[in-house]
């Protein structure tokens, strides 16, 4: 929960805070704070979030300005014009790395955020009302579960490859965002539904109901803040998953649209030059991708342990 997006999500969801909720979160925070690997992971992920938000801080070179006469310059480190060298087309690797962070991270936060909201709403509705609502949501969920995530992404992104969404930063990631969200909401819905089922029969919910609280109030003020625990542990892990998936899609040529650069595109372009004497073209983007994914996975793993009541 030290991750800013998760923290913001939690703050938004647990408002107004019930006393029991606050103690769970502060307890979790205290447990997370004591783990050195969590601190390191948070620093790394925060660093890449800053890179994505303010690329100008780290490189003043334009990633699109490429000079073919300066093709494949090896890294010159600090002081040189190209600290991390240049690629086949003479583009500055550092500038591409820095600007490549934004599409990946923006896509990840967008997809996970929207899927989480869909999952919270549908999961709460189906767990709370059961009956017909639950039957419909469960059937739809099953249909989406049967088609594997990556298969669907591959299918849809190739089908709609030629559909134009206009220019701009958001348009470059809009299509993968829609597809990844459409096939990414099921996990959250199932988790939320299961914990709503558990929570809704507790005494305090019955008490609120007998005091005349409306269904909407019961769901979103009383049940959801208590049922949200297991789902939050999914968030950092899913962010890591989306970043990895984006890299796969970019590698297949159907992810973030050119001219936007992303780490996946850089990896697939650089891989063949590794043994050709230019390992930096693969190692730099690969290092950034792995560091980001690893730090989010570590945060998610520890968050799950910290939120698990049986391990207390």
């Amino acid at each position: 929960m030290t991750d800013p997006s998760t923290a913001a999500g939690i703050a938004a969801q647990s408002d107004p805070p019930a006393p029991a909720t606050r103690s769970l979160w502060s307890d979790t925070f205290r447990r997370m704070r004591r783990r050195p690997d969590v601190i390191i992971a948070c620093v790394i992920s925060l660093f890449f979030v800053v890179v994505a938000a303010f690329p100008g801080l780290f490189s003043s070179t334009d990633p699109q300005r490429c000079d073919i006469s300066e093709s494949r310059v090896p890294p010159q480190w600090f002081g040189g014009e190209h600290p991390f060298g240049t690629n086949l087309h003479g583009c500055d690797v550092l500038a591409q790395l820095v600007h490549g962070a934004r599409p990946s991270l923006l896509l990840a936060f967008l997809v996970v955020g929207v899927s989480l909201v869909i999952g919270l709403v549908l999961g709460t509705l189906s767990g709370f009302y059961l009956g017909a609502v639950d039957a419909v949501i469960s059937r739809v969920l099953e249909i989406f579960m049967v088609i594997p995530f990556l298969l669907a992404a591959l299918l849809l992104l190739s089908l709609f490859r030629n559909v134009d969404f206009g220019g701009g930063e958001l348009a470059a990631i809009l299509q993968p965002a829609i597809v990844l969200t459409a096939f990414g909401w099921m996990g959250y819905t199932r988790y939320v539904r299961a914990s709503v089922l558990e929570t809704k029969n507790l005494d305090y919910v019955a008490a609120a109901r007998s005091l005349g609280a409306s269904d909407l109030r019961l769901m979103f003020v009383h049940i959801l803040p208590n049922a949200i625990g297991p789902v939050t542990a999914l968030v950092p892990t899913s962010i890591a998953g989306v970043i990895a998936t984006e890299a796969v899609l970019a590698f297949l040529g159907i992810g973030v649209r050119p001219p936007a650069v992303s780490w996946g595109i850089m990896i697939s372009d650089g891989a063949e030059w590794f043994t050709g004497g230019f390992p930096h073209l693969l190692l730099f983007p690969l290092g950034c991708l792995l560091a980001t994914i690893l730090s989010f996975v570590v945060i998610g793993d520890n968050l799950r342990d910290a939120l698990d009541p049986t391990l207390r």
Partner: protein
Amino acid sequence: MGGYIVRRLLQGVGSLIGVMLLLHLLMTLAIQLNGNPALAFFGDRVPSKSQLAAVEERFGLADPCYDQVGNPCLGPFVQRMGDYLTGDFGTNHRGREVTDIVATAAPNTLRLFVIVTLTWLLAGMLLGSVAARFRGRAPDHSIRFVSILIDAFPVFVMLLVYKFIVTVPVSNWMSARFGGDSLPALLFKPSFSPDHPWATVIVPGLLLGLAGAAPFLRLVRASQLENYNADHVRTARSKGLGDAHVTAFHIVRNSSIPVITAVGFVFAEALAGAVITEGMMNIYGMGGVLFNAVRDSEVSVVIGVVTILAVVTIVVMFVVDLLYAVLDPRIRYD
């Protein structure tokens, strides 16, 4: 139990129809937005009106609804469902039967699956059990660290690194040392060869299986840990049973139920991983066929193959559910 099977079977058929309807709607929308895929048949040439009409007729794209954006095109859908019931899955743009394509491609995918499943089952069970046995000590920490590391490595990166950095030098060295057609040289070939379908599929399968083993071993560890503190294990120990016996019969056996349910999900995941693996290692399998069909917008092949894959997935999930009910006597569906 009988009632449960029937209900579950009906649900399976329902989701299958749902999947096909969803796919149909998406493909229809894509055709309406992108233009007619029958034009792809002609390449650069501009066909005459009657030629185009003939090709459209042949691929079942003649219905005018494909030109109206937003029209769900239910007529062709019902017709296609009828064809599927009679076993007719259509043909690709060159007139080859989809069932024929699948019959050639499926064995390679199955080979990959056998190796993937063996890998993640063995690696996951073994490492998960060791981690649970030594909870909180060095083996546990190192196994969990490795599993997180594997999680962070996307499958395609693993394959990419393997293909571009490992295969060529190792394969050359092995060829020079043991001969070009020896097993070690074949194992590390950078791409699939139909003459040696098993040897060239082993290493990609191992990598894909390792990627699936990471979440699986954590599941194994968690479900075994629950059993280490359970009453029946304490009873078994207190009546003097040996450590190995308790681990094998009281802990591992009792913790295998959640593990079996994971099979269904791992299967669906492996299917997606197979698309990338087959694409990258040039394996002629279901994933590769699908990938090419999507690229060439061969509607009937895409829908046919995905339908077959969906049927397989639904059957696997159905069997897993039944196994779950059979294995766990506490679960009764009535």
